[in-house]
Structure formats: C-alpha cells, structure tokens
C-alpha cells in the first residue's frame, strides 16, 4: 500500500539525512521521490552533496565517496527494519584511514544491543572490535577458525 511506502520512505530519508553528514563531516544527503502518473515508473533518487562540492551526477563520485553514500543508505534501511544481527563483508575496503574511523564509529553507534559481525582486512577495524576471530587455511582448501582476542 502506498501509505506504508510513504511512511517508510520518510523514515529512511530521515535516517539518511542524519547519517550522511556524520560520515562526510558535513554536507547534506537526502532521498528524492520521483513522482510519476504511472506509479510503477516512479522511483527514489539518492542525492548526495559532500561538503564544499557541487555533485551533478553520482557516477562522478570517487570509489570511497560511493562507498560512504551506500553505507549511509544501507544503515538507514537497517535502522528502519532492525534485525537482531548485522554482517558487514569488507564494506570498509575502499575507505581511507579517516573514513574507516568514521565508519567504525557509525557501526558502534547503531550496534546498541544488536550483534555486528565485521569481515575486514583493515587493522583499525580489528583493533576496535570487541572480539576478534581469525580464519586461516593450515591445510590447503580447509578453513580453520581461531579466537584471537577478547576485550
């Protein structure tokens, strides 16, 4: 029903506009509803405005900027329909060191009483986690999971 859609849209847009400046240290991000007589044709446009820049077209954003916009979008969706757990698989890989820290504090802020499992190659993310598991292959082709550290 379009009632439910509109109220969900408003909520996701609310979270997105809040998370975007936290990840980009400023700027504005919002979602724009594209109305169309034919409701099937209508859609939602993501409008990112990093601080100090005039972005005309999302394709011109850098790898890292696209990752931050996408993270803000998925974290907004997750906040609207929170699951008890969240798996993030190498979502931080295009990010530079400062953005890894910002991403991490965002994850910390939404984790609350939920469980977050972060697969990463970034040392920074490993250091900040509460628990760390290592996965290795001592015998070729066979995975082994070891507990590394706990807080």
């Amino acid at each position, binding site marked *: 029903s379009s009632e439910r859609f509109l109220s969900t849209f408003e909520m996701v847009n609310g979270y997105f506009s809040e998370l975007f400046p936290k990840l980009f240290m400023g700027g504005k991000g919002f979602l724009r509803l594209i109305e169309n007589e034919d409701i099937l044709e209508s859609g939602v446009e993501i409008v990112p405005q990093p601080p100090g820049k005039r972005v005309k077209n999302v394709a011109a954003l850098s790898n890292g900027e696209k990752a931050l916009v996408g993270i803000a979008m998925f974290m907004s969706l997750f906040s609207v329909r929170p*699951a008890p757990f969240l798996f993030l698989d190498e979502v931080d890989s295009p990010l530079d060191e400062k953005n890894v820290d910002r991403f991490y504090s965002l994850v910390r802020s939404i984790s609350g009483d939920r469980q977050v499992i972060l697969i990463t190659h970034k040392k920074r993310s490993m250091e900040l986690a509460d628990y760390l598991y290592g996965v290795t292959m001592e015998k070729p082709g066979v995975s082994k999971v070891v507990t590394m550290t706990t807080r």
Partner: protein
Amino acid sequence: MRLKTLEMVGFKTFPEKTVIRFSPGITAIAGPNGSGKSNIVDAIRWVMGETAPTLLRTKSLEDVIFSGSEGHPPTSFAEVNLILENSDGIAPSGFESCAEIQVTRRAYRDGESEFFINRSPCRLKDINELFLDIGSGSRGYCIIEQAKVQQVVVSRPEDVKLLIEEAA
C-alpha cells in the same frame, strides 16, 4: 533474539565440524584472501533459507557441499546449524516459551535439502517465516557486502524504490 552459535560441517571450506560462538557487541573476522571468511556469511544466508545459487556464489545448490582438497576427500553432505537465543523476550510467534531456537539445513549430493527447527523436520516456508518474524531474512539488510554498497548508489530510481518497499 540473538545469535548464539553457528555450526558448519561439510559446507564449502568447512569439511570438519566448525563451531563459532557469537557474543554481544562487535566481532571482527580477519584472515588471508581465500581463507573462508565470506563462506561463513554464505552459511548464514543458506541456513536462513536462501535458494538462489548465484546469491551463494554457486552454479547449483549442491556446490555448497565441500568438493574436496589436496588432503581431504569431498564430503557427501553439508549441514549448518544456527542457534538463536531468546535474550530479549521477543521471540517469533509460536516460540515464546523456547529459551533457544535451533535452525538446521542439510543438503545431499542428489540435490535434496532438509530443514529442521529445534530438531524436528519442517518446510523451507517455516524457516522463511521464522526469520521474517525476527526481522532478518536472507535477502534483508542484515547482510551487506561491498559490491552491494557500491551498486546501490548508481542504481536506477525504480531499484532504490524497491529497496524501500522491502523495508516497508
């Protein structure tokens, strides 16, 4: 509900029984390229009822069964157990009295899949309903990977709208 333990046997690169205990807070998983980290995520998607081979990085569903390696013969079946703990008193309907819920999926080389909830056989539909009740589904927002993150930013407005509709 909260994740308590994941047990894998014969699933992808886990031929022998492997147990991962989950704790509250943030858990990082690290390790060399190709060591099996994303295979753990595939095990979660699979036990939550995922049936599309491409979303499990396979050509057909039997490809999740350990296909053998240098020192280890292939296994004949794959089994994943996910044990959830009722830590916050909000259990899915029908499970209010359970302190724990164990979800099991098993697959054989002939393509047959079996599903169990608390060790009694059930249908895929029951598993899907259970996880929808909890607020997580294999296609929901509880598994996010890098390719998906980059994709959403440049996708068409109709596709972004679909994402929001799924959350509605």
